[in-house]
C-alpha cells in the first residue's frame, strides 16, 4: 500500500478535513490542537514522514496560525497541518515525540510568545536573557522593528545551566569571540578536567531579525536579504525564495533557466565543501592540506566571479529565471574549471585518506549515531554521513532536478571521517551533474516575467548544508507580509552538542570543522 493511501486512512481516523493540492502531491489538513500531536506522531513514526519546518503566521489580536510541514521522501508528498490558536492559548508541544521540532517551538516561543504546553525548556534561545526583556516578542504584528528594546543590567542575572556536580567540575566557555576567524557563538563545555561531559550551544549572537525586517519590503528588495543572511549558501537560499515567488506568480520557468540554476547551485555546493574540507584539514594542523583546499576554494570563487560577476553568486538568480544569460564561452570555462577543481579535490582526498595522523583525529570522533541523527532530524551531509540518505533534490525534486540523475552518497558511521567521505563524494556527484546538465542544456530564454500575486507559498532547495524551506506570504500590496526561513543550520546545530559529548577538549574544534556549518545560516 502506498504511503499516500495509508496517510488518507490515518487522517480519516482522526476525522480531520483534508484538501489535496498540486496534483496530489500536497495535502493540506486543518486540525485542532487536540488531534495535532497524535497526527504528527503518526506521520513521523508510522508513515515515515520527515518533519520539514514549522511556520507561525501571526494574525491580529495575538492570534496565530501554525503550519507544520512534513514530507515523505518515499513518494515525494508534502503534508501541511494547519491549526489556529487564539491569544493566550497554549498549543501542545509536539517536540516531546517529534524531537526535530524542538528548536522550532523554542524559536516560536521567543518570537511570538506562544507557550507550547509540555515543552520543558523554553526561553533564553533566540533572544538572550542577557540582552532582551522577557516579554518582548518581535515577530508579532504590533512590534515595531525600528525600535530598540533596552533594559540595562540584565546580564548580571544570567548564569549558564550547570548539570555536572563532580568535584572540580567547571564550565569552559568557548566564544563568542574566539580562535582566529571563528564565527560568533558560545559553546559552554562542562568538564571535570579534560573530557567534555556536557556541551551546550548558545547561538543567536548574530540574530539580525531578517524575517522581521523583511516585512513590508518588496520581493525584489527582500531578495537581497535572501542572498545575504548566509552568504556562502546564497544561491541555494535565493533559489528557494525565488521559487516561492514563482509559485505565487504561476510562472513556468524555461528549461534553460532551470538547467543553469542546477549548474550554479552545484558550483556553490562544490565550493562550500572545498572550504569545509580546508577548514577540517586546518583544524588538525595539517596546513598543506588546508592550503590545497583553500586554493581550490579560491579558484572556484574566481570562477564564479568570472562567470557570474560575483564570487558568491549574488544577483544571479531572480524570480522568473536568471538575471542575465551567461555567455556560451563562460559556460565552457565553467565546465572546465569545475572539472579541474573536482580532479584536484580527488587528489587531496587521496592524500588525506592515506595520512594516518590525520585520520586518527577524525575517525570515531564526533560520532552522531544514526539513531541520534534520526531523532534530531539532521539534514544535509551530516545526515547522509549518519545513514540518512535524505536529499531534497531527490526526496522532493524541484526545478531542474526533476529529471536529473542525482546521486546521494551515504555513509553509516556518523563520525568525522564519514562526513569527510560524504563531502568528497558529493563533490564528485556535483561535478558529474554539472557536466551532464551543461551537455544537454536546452536552447531558449533564461527568464520569464514573474508577477507574484498575494497568497502563500512554500518552496525549498537543497543548500550545501542541507534542505532549506522558504515560506512566503505576500500581502495584497504584493509586499512581503511574512517570510519564514527554515535553514539546514537550524536543524543541524540542534544536534551538534551530542557529537562533542565525551571527547577531549582538543577535539572540539576538529568536530566543529567536520560539521561544516555556519552560524550565520542559523542566526537569521
Amino acid at each position, binding site marked *: 500500500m502506498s504511503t499516500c493511501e495509508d496517510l488518507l486512512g490515518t487522517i480519516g481516523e482522526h476525522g480531520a478535513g483534508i484538501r489535496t493540492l498540486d496534483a496530489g502531491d500536497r495535502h493540506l489538513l486543518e486540525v485542532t490542537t487536540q488531534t495535532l500531536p497524535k497526527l504528527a506522531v503518526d506521520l513521523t513514526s508510522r508513515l515515515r514522514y520527515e518533519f520539514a519546518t514549522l511556520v507561525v503566521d501571526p494574525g491580529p489580536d495575538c492570534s496565530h496560525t501554525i503550519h507544520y510541514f512534513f514530507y515523505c521522501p518515499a513518494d515525494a508528498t508534502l503534508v501541511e497541518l494547519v491549526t489556529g490558536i487564539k491569544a493566550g492559548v497554549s498549543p501542545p508541544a509536539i517536540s516531546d515525540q517529534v524531537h526535530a521540532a524542538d528548536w522550532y517551538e523554542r524559536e516560536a516561543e521567543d518570537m511570538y510568545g506562544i507557550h507550547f504546553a509540555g515543552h520543558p525548556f523554553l526561553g533564553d534561545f533566540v533572544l538572550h536573557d542577557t*540582552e532582551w526583556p522577557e516579554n518582548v516578542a*518581535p515577530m508579532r504584528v504590533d512590534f*515595531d*522593528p*525600528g525600535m530598540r528594546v533596552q533594559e540595562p543590567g540584565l546580564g548580571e542575572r544570567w548564569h549558564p545551566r550547570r548539570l555536572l556536580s563532580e568535584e572540580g567540575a567547571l564550565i569552559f566557555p568557548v566564544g*563568542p*569571540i574566539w*580562535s*582566529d*576567524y*571563528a*564565527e*560568533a557563538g558560545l559553546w559552554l563545555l562542562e568538564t571535570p578536567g579534560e573530557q567534555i561531559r556536557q556541551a551546550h550551544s548558545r547561538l543567536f*549572537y*548574530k*540574530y*539580525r*531579525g*531578517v524575517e*522581521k*525586517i523583511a516585512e513590508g519590503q518588496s520581493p*525584489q528588495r527582500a531578495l*537581497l*536579504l535572501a542572498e*545575504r*543572511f*548566509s*552568504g*556562502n*549558501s*546564497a544561491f541555494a537560499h535565493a533559489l528557494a525564495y525565488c521559487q516561492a515567488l514563482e509559485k505565487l506568480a504561476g510562472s513556468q520557468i524555461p528549461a534553460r533557466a532551470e538547467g543553469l540554476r542546477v549548474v550554479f547551485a552545484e558550483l556553490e555546493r562544490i565550493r562550500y565543501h572545498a*572550504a569545509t574540507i580546508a577548514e577540517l584539514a586546518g583544524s588538525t594542523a*595539517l596546513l*598543506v592540506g588546508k*592550503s*590545497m583546499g*583553500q*586554493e581550490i*576554494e*579560491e579558484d572556484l*570563487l*574566481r570562477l564564479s*566571479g*568570472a562567470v557570474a*560577476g*560575483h*564570487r*558568491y553568486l*549574488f*544577483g*544571479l538568480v531572480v524570480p522568473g529565471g536568471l*538575471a*542575465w544569460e551567461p555567455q556560451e564561452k563562460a559556460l565552457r570555462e565553467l565546465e572546465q574549471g569545475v572539472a579541474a577543481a573536482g580532479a584536484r579535490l580527488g587528489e587531496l582526498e587521496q*592524500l588525506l585518506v592515506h*595520512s594516518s*595522523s590525520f585520520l586518527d583525529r577524525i575517525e570515531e570522533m564526533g560520532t552522531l549515531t544514526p539513531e541520534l541523527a534520526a531523532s534530531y532530524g539532521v539534514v544535509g551531509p551530516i545526515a547522509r554521513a549518519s545513514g540518512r540518505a535524505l536529499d531534497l533534490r531527490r526526496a522532493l525534486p524541484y526545478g531542474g532536478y526533476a529529471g536529473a540523475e542525482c546521486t546521494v552518497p551515504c555513509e553509516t558511521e556518523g563520525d568525522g571521517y564519514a562526513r569527510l567521505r560524504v563531502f568528497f563524494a558529493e563533490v564528485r556527484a556535483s561535478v558529474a551533474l554539472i557536466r551532464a546538465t551543461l551537455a544537454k542544456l536546452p536552447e531558449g530564454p533564461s527568464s520569464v516575467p514573474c508577477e507574484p500575486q498575494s497568497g502563500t507559498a512554500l518552496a525549498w532547495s537543497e543548500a550545501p548544508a542541507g534542505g532549506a524551506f522558504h515560506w512566503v506570504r505576500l500581502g495584497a500590496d504584493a509586499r512581503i507580509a511574512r517570510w519564514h526561513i527554515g535553514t539546514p543550520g537550524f536543524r543541524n546545530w540542534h544536534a551538534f552538542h551530542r557529537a562533542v559529548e565525551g571527547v577531549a577538549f582538543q577535539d572540539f574544534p576538529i568536530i566543529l570543522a567536520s560539521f561544516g556549518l*555556519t552560524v*550565520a*545560516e542559523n*542566526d537569521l
Partner: protein
Amino acid sequence: MANWVLRSLARGIRTTRWPRAEETSLGVTPGRPRAATGMSAEAAERCPTAALMPVEHGVAVGFERCVHCQRCRHGATAMPWSGDFEWTGGGPRESVDLPARFRRSLHVRYVDAGACGGCMGEVRLIDAPPYNLHRFGIFITASPRDADVLLVGGPVTEAMRTPVRKAYAAMPDPKRVVAMGVCAINGGVFGASFASAGGVGEVIPVDYVIPGCPPPPLAIIHALLAVTGRAATQVTAEQP
C-alpha cells in the same frame, strides 16, 4: 608525512604579486559601478540600496552602500563597472596612520558581529596561499589584548554590542578599528533595527572602512596596509 612536505615544496609559490604588480585575474573582485556622466536617472532607479544617485550631469555612486547586486550591470541603462579592489576609505573618526614601527609587525583581531558567510569566507582567505597576508608582516591574533587593529564584520547585532565594546577596550593603545563590508559601515541590507546597531560606528569609533559586499581578500589586505600608511585610502563616493 614526507609526502606532504614534498608536495608542499613542489607546489611552488602561488601568491599574487600584488601590490608590486597589478592583479588582473578574473574573479578576484566583484567590481563595482562607477559614476558616469550622461546617464539618465532611470539607471539610478534600479539600485535597491540608493548607492546610485541621480545628479545634474549623470549618476553618482556611494560605494559605502553598494552591495554588488549587479542590477545596474546589465541591460540598456547599464552603468560602467570597474574591476578594482583598492576600496578602503577613511572612517568617521579623524585618525592618523599607525607609526612606522607597526609597518612590519601588525596584529589584527577579526570580530564577527553578525557577518554572513560571505565576509567570513573572504576574511579566512587573506592568509591562504593565493594572498598570503604574512608576507607583509601582518598577523591574525586570537586575543584582542595582542591586537593593534580590530577588524569588524557585520552590522553589530544586539548580542554582539557588548563583546565588541569589551574587545575594543581590551586592546592596548595605539589601536585602530576597520569596519569591513557594507554591513559594518552602515548596516547594509540589514540596516539599523531592533536587532542590529546598523554599523560598527554606532558602538566603537571607526578609523577605516572597506566598502564591498563582501570585500574580496585583496580589498581587506589593502585596508590593513592603509592602516600603517603603506597604501593610500580612497574616496568612498564618486561624482560624475
